[in-house]
């Protein structure tokens, strides 16, 4: 089926299969490998993307469900040359180790900050609790979100 969506500000049209997962569409067909897959069953959060501004798990989303949506992946938030404030904050605060959970973590944090620009630390803890990290112990991730430069 043909689907149309806007991804990272660009209108896109794709022919997808009915059973195609959004995470595969992004990674394999659009080359957006910043979105990671850590479990494939909605437990780790590494595949989070923004759908109309809200964090959604692309491993549990069918490509067909993207039709008509406005999507932002980690690549759409910023790049090393022009990073998003959260991306810069993650790097500066030591919130990145292996980095495989980081894109999903940043996406979840972006969702939170859009709704609550000045969250308490415990609110951040709650908001990121669906994103697993095996390297950090989360302290510096919470720091990065808490101390992010506000626009």
């Amino acid at each position: 089926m043909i689907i149309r969506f806007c991804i990272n500000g660009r209108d896109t049209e794709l022919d997808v299969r009915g059973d195609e997962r959004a995470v595969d569409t992004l990674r394999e067909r659009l080359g957006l490998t910043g979105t990671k897959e850590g479990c494939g069953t909605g437990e780790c959060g590494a595949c989070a993307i923004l759908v109309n501004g809200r964090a959604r798990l692309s491993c549990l989303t069918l490509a067909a469900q993207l039709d008509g949506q406005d999507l932002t992946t980690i690549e759409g938030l910023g790049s090393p040359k022009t990073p998003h404030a959260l991306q810069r904050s993650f790097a500066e605060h030591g919130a990145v180790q292996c980095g495989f959970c980081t894109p999903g973590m940043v996406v979840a944090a972006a969702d939170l900050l859009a709704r609550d620009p000045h969250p308490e630390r415990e609110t951040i803890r709650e908001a990121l609790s669906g994103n697993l990290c095996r390297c950090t112990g989360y302290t510096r991730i919470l720091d990065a979100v808490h101390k992010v430069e506000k626009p």
Partner: protein
Amino acid sequence: MSHEPYDIGPARPRLDALAKACGTELFSADSYPPGLLWAGARRCGVPHGILRGVDAAEARALPGVHAVLTREDVPGSNRQGIVHKDMPVLCGTRVRHCGDPVALVVAESRDVLRKALALIHVDIEPRQTLADMDAALAPDAPLIHEPHGSNILLAAEIHKGNAEEALAQCDVVLEETYFTPAQAHAFLETENGLARLDEDGILHLTVSTQAPFRDRFEIGHALGIEPWKIRVHSPFLGGGFGGKDGATVQCLLGLAALRLPGRTIKMWWDREESFLAGYKRHAARMHYRLGAMNDGTLRSLVCHLWYDTGAYAHLGGEIMELGMEHAAGPYRVNHMDCRGLCVYTNNPVAGAFRGFGVAQASLAFEGMMDRLADRLGRDRLDLRRQNALRRGDRNCAGVTLTSSVGLDECLRRVQGHELWTTRHAWKKDAPPFTRRGVGVAAVFNGMGYGRGLADNAIAKIELTPDGRFVIYSGVPDMGQGNASTFAQIAGEMLCQDAGRLEVIQPDTERSHPSGSASAGRTTYTFGQALIKACEMMTTKLVRRAALALMIDEPGGFTLVPGAVRHLPTGKELPLTVMGAMLPRDDRVCVAEYLMPVSRDVLDTGKDFPLGFPHLIFPFAAHLVRVEVDELTGLVRVCDYLAATDGGRVLNPQNFHQQIEGAVAQGLGFALMEGFGTENARITTPDLSTYLIPTSLDLPDTQSVAVETLEHSGPFGMKGVGEVGMNGPLPAVASALSDALGAHITRAPVTPAMILELLASRGAQA
């Protein structure tokens, strides 16, 4: 700011962090070259049996299937393993655990692959399942590896003094048995890689691996090809923790690539396959008898350790060795008799995991210290300080500690910390139906390979034609940050800013063999080699600059960001000019370093061909405050403090990252993570049944560095990748015994266990 040297000492953001945060760093899993094929293994699903046949006809007939391979298709020895070559690439006659692969499918797409795998019919005659070590050690138990002649992979002893005799003379003798579970590494990026056989006969692999140079030999041996015809590249890993040290996808990928020359083959285990077929921490049982004098002096330890290595050896013997070498803890104990058995079972394969055998023994020796303190009416921390190893002491294996020993200072930091000094008031303030406890633990972890296996690294650095420095790393970065630290070492030595430093991830074609990313050795060994290479580079650049500037003596030169400067004349030669001026051979420096080993000649540990003993130890003292809900049995970790002696800290940010991460993994080990099996079949196949800590489960860990000076290490450091893992379980056990008045002997400590303890001791508030 941009010209500030990327030097040693300050907390500097890692060079890899921003690209990772932007999703532009390419992990091995992120590669999808055009025309790639997908490979997958058919897992046998039976814990123990005779493989009678594999019927792949239907799978082969499925459109889109390029190959279905079985044992007969494996050209070489078909055997993998780091020390013992006992693990088949594809099983031919026997299966030894549920994750054993019996066929390899290569298909057009993942969909076809999934369908084809389901169409392979396997005929297995089940044999008695040896689901635990007792079953495997029974006299009539079938042999899991018949050529080995026993289900005991390794039986070993470490002796010091006369332990039984000394025990008889002790004022106090305590006895206890401890159990620790299998644990999954649960890295976010599961095992994966790509392979392609090129026209020139070179087999190219890109793998999420901790040991690319060893992989070449493993693949060559298993598949019957020359190791030098294999090229392995390891990009940044999405986590490793030991679980990617050894064969995972490598030989299967190589086999597929050999069958389909010119095609790129990708294999990526899903989470369930990773849990089923990936390595685990060894489940262990530890029986301890500890003797001490009334004044608190430890005297003698007699202990037996059993480690369940599962179906294959991996590094089981070496892992048990490290546990045994640490069996009496970081204390002066004059007499020890430690016996270990590493046992084959039909459980998932156990292998290397951060804390390498010591994370298990830490529960036992620290549990005994708490018991002893309680028996003698002593403060738990004081008793540890009284017995803490100091430099010049012999440890329990008999090795003289000639290197840095900061344990007592770690304990002192904990003792002076307000989390400790306010503990009584804090406990008293427990809300209704809640109990509070404060626990401590002292731990250590031998660094490096130990004697018998050269812990060597070879560093290469190149000045590029455009005046930058490229470091060719020989040891993978699985997230611990060594790549960036290598840049920092070069930045310090050559006085260059981050923009002029680049680290190339290990590639057997471009970098030099430097061992595995493991054993807390990565920065230590490669770092020392890199320092030497940088010294050579400095000498070289100064001499060439002297020539170019027509200055007849090389004194008075120094490197500054972007240039070589002659101080007496003020003349400068930009690195861009030097890079353009010199031929490639003259722009490269290579140097190597060999980690020192203990010179003590010990009349023990002779069962270990390699890895015994160790010379250099990071130490740590941990404190935890926990709250127990009397109604639900839930344990909340309220505060955590880790004081770590890792020698001098090269970058505080990286240092604390390692400690905080290890503590998180250790708290999982203590309270949540029991890798489940029932009759050797896994019962925790995903992250909703195998729970690892989330942001809600962990406190903000406070990490404190005790900066001793490790004279042998680069800038005085020693590796801290492992030691932080060993503290949380014994510290939590200590805190729970403080809260509940009952000693913890088994991990993970579940709410059900807490409720049982409360019930058996009367739940009076």
